[in-house]
């Protein structure tokens, strides 16, 4: 077991993780035997990997830590494990001042194509290592987030879990997000759970470093000293954290780092009345009333470059821009699409959302507009009475043929359309921008073409079908900018 003073330092460093630290240091102590494999599991930002490496460091156990988030393939992970083990064992040998601390033979462990090669390499590595000072010498391999590994071979986790059984003195520690016993194929593996922090724990941890109310202390006020400011910060920050937790984080950002991010994002806005001198530093309840719109909206929770509600209202947009400090592009940007591109997009939207059956009603030049609307609503009503139909606009866009698109384009425009290749080039541009998608069998060929192999399928092959990849708002705005009211042409409109 850890000496009590060491334990105290660790506990000071990592709050609210007492039992986990005790369990870990019991499992990996320099004197007692350790299990060949152990599993640490818990949600993100619960302190798993940092506590593990701290405990191993304190106990002076040589270890290698590999983060599988940085590994692109399974092979990549294995190569990195080998590399990290070689480096760690070399360092351990140097540290032990061994006379015959021979360099690890790099040629020997050059390739690690699969898990068996890893086992062989590690066996060779550990060969000269474990016997130097008796059996008590151990080596721990920590693999972080191995259940999220990209392109992992199916036997990866089970294989890693078995390494400790095959190689004496070698111990594997797997960090997982969720415990998956069936993946390990061995029983009685010690599991240590890192539960998410509770409200009190979160606030306790984050209160250790309170944020400053004033970015710099007001110079004209000599009475307000730095100590007083620090006291105010310490007083206000935990209360503010509690407020944020109750209002926002409880539902949407329970993870410690997300909680911290949300709190940081809104802090400047929250204390703005104090900085402006309107309220005192201890007027918490009035500050809360002032901050009510902040707590009710989703401003603090948006992670994106553009806030989610940017299109709906100007107020949320401006607040989002103020809070996140990110420039929000104006809705009517000067980067206008060319005329035919816009009309083509409108036509594509109509082709996707109008049933092809009703095209004669909507797009024949002879059809009267009023009649068209009445007829359309009559048919939809008749249908609706029989069985409930989901409105078409809520459904995904249906595929259409190229000729139908071109025909609708002609129907939409009051003037004639020049029959040049430019229109088709425009279409190809829209496909490359992913505003239009190919669907069905042709999509795979175009995907392979874009993958750079060979241009197998013609992008403009007449047989293929197409879909739009944008919504009603975008289409409607496009239509208005070229003087088309799309609702008039759309079937099933209210």
């Amino acid at each position, binding site marked *: 077991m850890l000496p009590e003073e060491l334990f105290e330092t660790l506990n000071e460093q990592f709050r609210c993780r007492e039992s986990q630290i005790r369990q870990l240091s019991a499992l990996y102590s320099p004197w007692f035997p350790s299990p060949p494999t152990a599993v640490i599991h818990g949600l993100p930002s619960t302190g798993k990997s940092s506590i593990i490496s701290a405990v191993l460091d304190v106990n002076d156990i040589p270890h290698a830590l590999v983060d599988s988030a940085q590994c*692109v393939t399974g092979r990549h992970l294995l*190569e990195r494990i080998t590399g990290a083990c070689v480096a760690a064992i070399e360092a351990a040998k140097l540290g032990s001042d061994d006379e015959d601390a021979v360099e690890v033979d790099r040629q020997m462990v050059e390739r690690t194509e699969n898990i068996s090669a890893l086992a062989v390499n590690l066996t060779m590595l550990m060969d000269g290592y474990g016997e130097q000072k008796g059996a008590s010498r151990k080596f721990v391999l920590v693999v972080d987030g191995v259940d999220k590994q990209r392109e992992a071979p199916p036997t990866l986790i089970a294989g890693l879990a078995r390494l400790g059984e095959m190689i004496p003195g070698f111990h594997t520690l797997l960090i997982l997000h969720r415990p998956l016993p069936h993946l390990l194929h061995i029983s009685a593996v010690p599991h240590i759970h890192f539960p998410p922090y509770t409200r009190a724990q979160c606030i306790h941890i984050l209160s250790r470093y309170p944020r400053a109310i004033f970015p710099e202390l007001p110079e004209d006020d000599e009475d307000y000293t730095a100590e007083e400011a620090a006291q105010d910060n310490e007083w206000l920050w935990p209360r503010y954290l509690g407020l944020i937790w109750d209002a926002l984080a409880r539902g949407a950002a329970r993870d410690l780092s997300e909680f911290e991010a949300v709190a940081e994002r809104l802090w400047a806005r929250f204390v703005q009345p104090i900085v402006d001198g309107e309220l005192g530093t201890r007027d918490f309840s009035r500050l809360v009333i002032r901050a009510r719109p902040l707590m009710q909206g989703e401003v603090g929770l948006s992670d994106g470059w553009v806030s989610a509600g940017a299109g709906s209202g100007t107020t949320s947009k401006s607040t989002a821009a103020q809070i996140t400090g990110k420039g929000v*592009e104006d809705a009517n940007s000067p*980067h206008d*699409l060319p005329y035919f591109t816009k009309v083509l997009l409108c036509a594509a939207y109509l082709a996707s959302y109008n049933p092809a059956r009703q095209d004669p009603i909507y797009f024949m030049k002879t059809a009267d507009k009023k009649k068209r609307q009445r007829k359309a609503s009559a048919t939809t009503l008749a249908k609706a009475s029989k069985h409930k139909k989901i409105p078409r606009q809520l459904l995904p866009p249906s595929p259409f043929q190229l000729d139908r698109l071109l*025909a609708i384009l002609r129907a939409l425009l009051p003037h004639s359309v020049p029959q040049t290749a430019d229109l088709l080039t425009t279409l190809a*541009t829209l496909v490359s921008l992913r505003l239009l998608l190919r669907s069905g069998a042709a999509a795979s060929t175009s995907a392979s073409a874009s993958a750079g192999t060979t241009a197998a399928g013609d992008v403009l092959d007449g047989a293929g079908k197409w879909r739009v990849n944008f919504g009603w708002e975008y289409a409607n705005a496009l239509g208005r900018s070229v003087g088309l009211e799309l609702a008039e042409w759309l079937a099933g409109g209210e």
Partner: protein
Amino acid sequence: MEHEVAYRFKATQSRPVKRRRVLPGGLQTSWATRKRAYDELWPAQRNRIQTALDHVNHETVDGVSHFAFQAQDVRRSGKVPVALVITGSSITSWTSFLGSLSDRLTSSRANLVVSLRSGESPNLKTLLRVLIAKASAGGDSGNEDETLLHHNTGRLLNYDLQLLEDLLRERATENVVIAFEESETFDGALLSDTINLISSWVDRIPFMIIFSVATTLENLQHRISRGSLRHTEGRTFSIAPASEVLELALDIAVRGDSIPLWVGCSVSNMIMARQKDYFQCTDLLIDSLQYAYMSHFYANPLSIFLLEDLQYAAVPRDHFEALRNLGSFRRHVESILEIENGADVVRALLESDERLFQYARDGVSRARALVKGLVAAVHLLHTLRSHVPRLDHITLSSLYIRGLAGELNLSPPVRELLLSIKMVPSNVLPRLLEEVLRHSSNNSDLALVELQQRLKTLTSCRTAPLRSHHDTHGETIRTTIVAQKVELSKQKSRISEDDSAYSEIVDQFHDYLERHFMRTFLRPENIFMHEIVIYDLKSPHRDVFMPRPRFAIERALSLPHDYLDCSCCHPTAGGSNLENTLSASQPATSILYQLYMESGPLINVADLWLAFDAVVGGTNNQEAAVMTQFQRALAELRYLGMIRPSRRKADHVTKVSWKGL
């Protein structure tokens, strides 16, 4: 030589000479001179435009590079700095922007710019491989073999970012900028994955990402997972919209002292309309201009007169005949005849080539001066309109097109401007005067300078702007009822002495401008020698830049005579009307296509065969041959994408394309 395993091939000549008539005759004799003229004149113009365009986005370049220099602060908080550059749909502006950005970044500090395209990076592994390869090639030292030796933990896979880290450790790089070209074309999951991976390396490798956004930011953001977005810190930038860049490019191309050739109204109208309707792309504009220069110098023998240092001896004789046949020359001669001694001048021009040479040289330089003045006046009109409040914005290009069409004189844009100048208050007028002074060369300056002085003395001791008496601001409408009739009468509030003095200045300025515009807005076709300085032929541009493949194929199939031009297929050969053009002499595919046009969306192949057989009309023993023709034609239609085998009905094909769409 055969005893050697390998030998080095030494070419005796640089290029084999084509067997063709070496000595051109007729008007082609000036070909070499014209080629020289083109080689001299066009590259200079191109460079002028290109240098102007390179500086268009300097503000955005400044912004992004500033962001890059401060990116370390963002990375310290564990986030990836992301610059979102909104480029619009045009890809060319992005390439020029990225070029100047990477020049800026790589010159001033240790930065590395890597541009990625979706075609070359379909998945994460390949993307990283390309990234590392480009980054290591972009640096000044080392190839891949070296980097493999340097690292200290055994062999690394070629997509391991550890390689990049080792590489950068030696170079002390401040930023590794990854520019995603056309970020819409990347797969959303791939982008998210890349961001995740990069953010886990950001403490060791100073990464920074640039996305080029062609549509909208929301569109891009929706495709990236929220978890990845959380790892980024974005800032938006916007580069100059393509339409503005186009205006600028056109302005550079037509305004200036060294312009040899102008593009006429119909060609420029076509170019600009195409830009507005289909693509916004400056490269296309430059290409169109280049093609105009090429067509003019390669096909118009008289273009040699655009050479500055042309000698009389260098002009072949028949060129003078061509000159005498020019439309503008004839009109000019007729107008000379009306003045005194005109007949002598005309006689000399018609008889002496040498005299004509000098006259034409003068005519060309005069025509150039006139067109230059016209273009400058168009520009002045545009500038003044932008300075006067409450005038609609008309693009410079459209004004230019109307100016070269000769429609600008007394046109609405000019009259609007002149009317509002009458009402302009005294805080706006000085700027207008300055613009006009800057525009006008030496003559008639004195009047303007004097106006400016008077204005200065008038306004020097006043704070409120003066108003001219044309301004309706001081007008009140008075209603009087006399014998149950309402009379409206306008009444001017009394204007002060200063105001009336100001009104006088405004009137003089107005008259000056009116005269100036009257003088400069000429009809280009009335200018002597306009054929030489203005190129205005639409059809070459239309043929070259706006191909119509589908139309051409459909026309070839439905009216084969248009292409074959044989007597047998002539539409009227059969004696019947134009509608019925089917005949056995036509190509089989064409016959089948015309039958196909008459049928519905589902075609029974047996019916088609019967009809085909009836048209081709073979006798019984020829049936096999006709059947071969039929099958071949059917296969060709299928190859052209017009029919498709139908799954709905047996022995039927689906009609896929309709004519004229």
